[in-house]
């Protein structure tokens, strides 16, 4: 069965650079969630989209933005990267109120 796809799987950036993470949900899923997991930390909810509209917002820095496109894939844009942004970024998808299925994550390293 198709799973959530995230790209890239690994990303290395310098401080103050910009990064874009992509998430392709399971087919027919209409909701996408983004989570950030710092080293040794639990995953923290960042933001979610339902039918291309932002549905919920968590602890997402103002330097980050995200959107969901007409094909339901989502992108997380991160600007002015800081060392503390180094983390594993998970995307999850669901049918509106259903169980979330997580992607494999993108490991971002900021040098």
């Amino acid at each position, binding site marked *: 069965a198709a799973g959530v796809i995230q790209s890239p799987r690994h990303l290395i950036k310098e401080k103050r650079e910009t990064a874009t993470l992509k998430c392709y949900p399971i087919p027919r899923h209409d*909701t996408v969630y983004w989570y950030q997991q710092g080293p040794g930390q*639990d*995953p923290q*909810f960042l933001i979610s989209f339902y039918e291309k509209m932002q549905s919920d917002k968590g602890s997402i820095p103002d330097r980050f933005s995200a959107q969901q496109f007409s094909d339901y894939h989502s992108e997380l844009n991160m600007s002015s990267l800081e060392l503390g942004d180094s983390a594993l970024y998970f995307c999850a998808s669901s049918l*509106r*109120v259903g169980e979330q299925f*997580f992607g*494999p*994550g993108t490991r971002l390293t900021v040098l």
Partner: protein
Amino acid sequence: SQQGEEDPQALSIQEGENATMNCSYKTSINNLQWYRQNSGRGLVHLILIRSNEREKHSGRLRVTLDTSKKSSSLLITASRAADTASYFCATTPASGTYKYIFGTGTRLKVLA
């Protein structure tokens, strides 16, 4: 502060023993899920328990939920070295949001 808190934060046991991990949360929930994560890799869904359920089994896993105490436990029976991982609980608040709130995780080490 986090919705979910795991207890203990680290647990080391011998292969064949049972491992029990606890999770507490603060607000009313719709459901609670347990996830497993191997060394900074992906989150693997283990089991979901709804707020109107008290116990659920899946293979060697047994999950209980006590909504009056706002707590859940995950029991892994007859543990194996391959069970070595971090285990997280994640709750969906009953407040109308669908985001998951994760606990801090328990790092389980099963010694062969």
